């Protein structure tokens, strides 16, 4: 039964990696559904990871223990939302090019966070290691189920939150008036505007939600995986989240599948390191996998070619309605 145990461990660790991706990709989803391209996801997650490290660090310094990581998450959200507001203000209000501002956010996020880390920690390139990070919660009864208990029900609270986020997002997007309006703004802002829906407001909401979720995503990396923040903490997870959002075809359930798949790719590369034969596997191909698959999906080589929300990428100019 050794291999079964291994698979349970792998699944468990897949979900840990998936957590940050789900938050990130769902963040991208809300932004793009409202019509704003979010290439800055990586930057927002970096902000989240940094905020979590700093927030939890100061909470620890002031004597808090078990609540420190949760305060870290709040701080992560706050940092990420700063970048979201930047994106919203420039692209929605000033109608700046969304892709460029996204690139700027990615550049700025890494630079600003590292700068602050160096300022706060006297020139060190990473934050002090946190003593209080998130612990795994075993759900009573469910965690005792053989295999599944270990694979699914003995993990971090943030992972449970991510599980819940998927159906909640699907419900919000497809069943509520808010979701209908948000999607209408991303598909045809002119139609939304002429029935009295405030396009600007909904786009701000979409982008800010994106910031909140990406911030949580970044924070979970700090608080479950690395326990500190450095320039390698996020390293590309935001782009994988972006890829997952596209691979999942801008749909929460699709995103769940895509993030699980990409999360597994990440879990695998840690997992196979335990084995001798892993030396012969070109790990680089495992790293590449999410990006290659996303390209193939976009090119229509896997399934039908996909298109995102019709109006994503364009600023809404009411004078042209």
């Amino acid at each position, binding site marked *: 039964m050794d291999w079964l145990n291994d698979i349970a461990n792998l699944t468990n660790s897949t979900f840990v990696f998936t957590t940050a991706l789900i938050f990130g990709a769902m963040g991208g989803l809300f932004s793009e559904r409202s019509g704003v391209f979010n290439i800055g996801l990586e930057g927002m997650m970096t902000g989240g990871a940094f905020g979590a490290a700093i927030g939890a660090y100061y909470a620890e310094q002031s004597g808090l223990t078990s609540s420190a990581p949760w305060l870290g998450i709040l701080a992560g959200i706050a940092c990420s939302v700063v970048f979201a507001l930047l994106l919203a203000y420039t692209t929605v209000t000033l109608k700046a090019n969304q892709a*460029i501002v996204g690139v*700027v956010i990615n550049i700025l996020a890494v630079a600003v966070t590292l*700068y602050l880390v160096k300022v706060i920690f006297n020139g060190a390139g990473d934050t002090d290691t946190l003593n209080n990070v998130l612990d795994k919660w075993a759900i009573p009864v469910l965690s005792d189920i053989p295999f599944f208990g270990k694979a699914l029900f003995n993990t971090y609270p943030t992972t449970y939150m991510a599980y819940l986020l998927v159906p909640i997002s699907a419900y919000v997007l497809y069943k509520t008036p808010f979701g209908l309006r948000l999607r209408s703004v991303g598909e045809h802002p002119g139609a939304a505007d002429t029935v009295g829906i405030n396009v600007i407001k909904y786009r701000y909401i979409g982008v800010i939600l994106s910031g909140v979720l990406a911030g949580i995503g970044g924070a979970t990396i700090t608080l479950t995986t690395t326990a500190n923040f450095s320039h*390698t903490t996020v390293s590309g997870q935001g782009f994988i989240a972006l890829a997952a959002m596209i691979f999942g075809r801008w749909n929460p359930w699709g995103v769940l599948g895509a993030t699980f798949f990409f999360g597994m790719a990440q879990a695998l590369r840690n997992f196979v390191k335990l084995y001798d034969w892993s030396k012969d596997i*070109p790990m680089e191909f495992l790293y590449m996998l999410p990006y290659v698959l996303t*390209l193939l999906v976009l090119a229509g080589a896997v399934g039908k070619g996909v298109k995102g929300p019709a109006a994503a990428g364009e600023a809404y100019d009411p004078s042209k309605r």
Partner: protein
Amino acid sequence: MSENQSVRKWSRIFVASSIWVPIIAIILGLICGAIVMWIGGFNAWDAYSALFKKVFGSKYDIGETIRTITPLLFTGLSVGFAFRAGLFNIGADGQFIMGMTGATILGIKIDFLPWILHAPIAVLGGMIVGGLWGALAGYLKSSRGVNEVISCIMLNWIALYLSNYLIRTLVLKQGSQRSEEIQSSASMSIDWLSKAMDNARMDWGIVFGLICTSLFYIILWRTKQGYELRAVGFNPEAARFSGINVSKNMLKSMMISGMIAGLGGVFEVLGVFHYQVISAASSGYGFDGIAVALLGGNHPVGILLSSILFGVLTYGSAGMNFTAGVPTEIVRIVIGCVIFFVASQGLIQMLYKPFTARRDAKRKEAA
């Protein structure tokens, strides 16, 4: 419709910018940097003067500054060229890496040719690999309708890992995380100049960069090919109706763009380092190229000037760190802020609108 419109916007936003926008953007960027330094408890004035002292301090520093400018010039030209054809080449990073990798492998594996043959082969080889990497994004765009921004992001990461794989399996220096040294017959360094500049790493890169700058202008504004590229950039639909093959031109522009970025990578290996390292993250030159192109208004002269500016800032940041203790990231913050202000021209226009309101008024069309 959305696709065309956004394409048209790409070229318009960046082309039709007043000369004031970049200048104000630079000033605002430097001010933002100063504020950030002040928040961090540093003296911004000292830091900025340390920066300039560092750059112009010695012959060595001037030489090294030129070396820093070179890749920025290449990636800036690369991004700018694609912008002119209506494409956002966010993938200059990957093309740069592929150019490096091509040059590294050719520079190491070929060991029987004289310099006169080996060096050109390695340069051309790297350039072509970069060009093909760019053409891949161009192909996905023109034949498959994949947004080039997304495909380029994906291709950047694929390039990074593919390059690591190739270096690791083909030309790894045993027991290290980098390739072996290239053969001296592939070197593009200029040794006599390096000696004259107190051993700064001088190479042919900047010369090629300046050649590319002039070719950029000649191709786009003096040839029929360039006319087609610009027509496609401004209005692909009208170009198609006029018998211009839009797909082919998109492909061409991405390939040329990739070749320019690839050349940047080539000289980084053949001229400067003579080896390539296996790294977890990209150099970021491609993203700096976006900044350079934007600030330079996609015009060759503008790109040259802005690459000099960003090169000076980047090289000088070491001086800031050494003298004033400011983390080098401050320069990335300044660069980020500068593009930010260029991209959100609305912000800058608000600042100088009162002076030019009348001029703008004429341009708007009535509904």
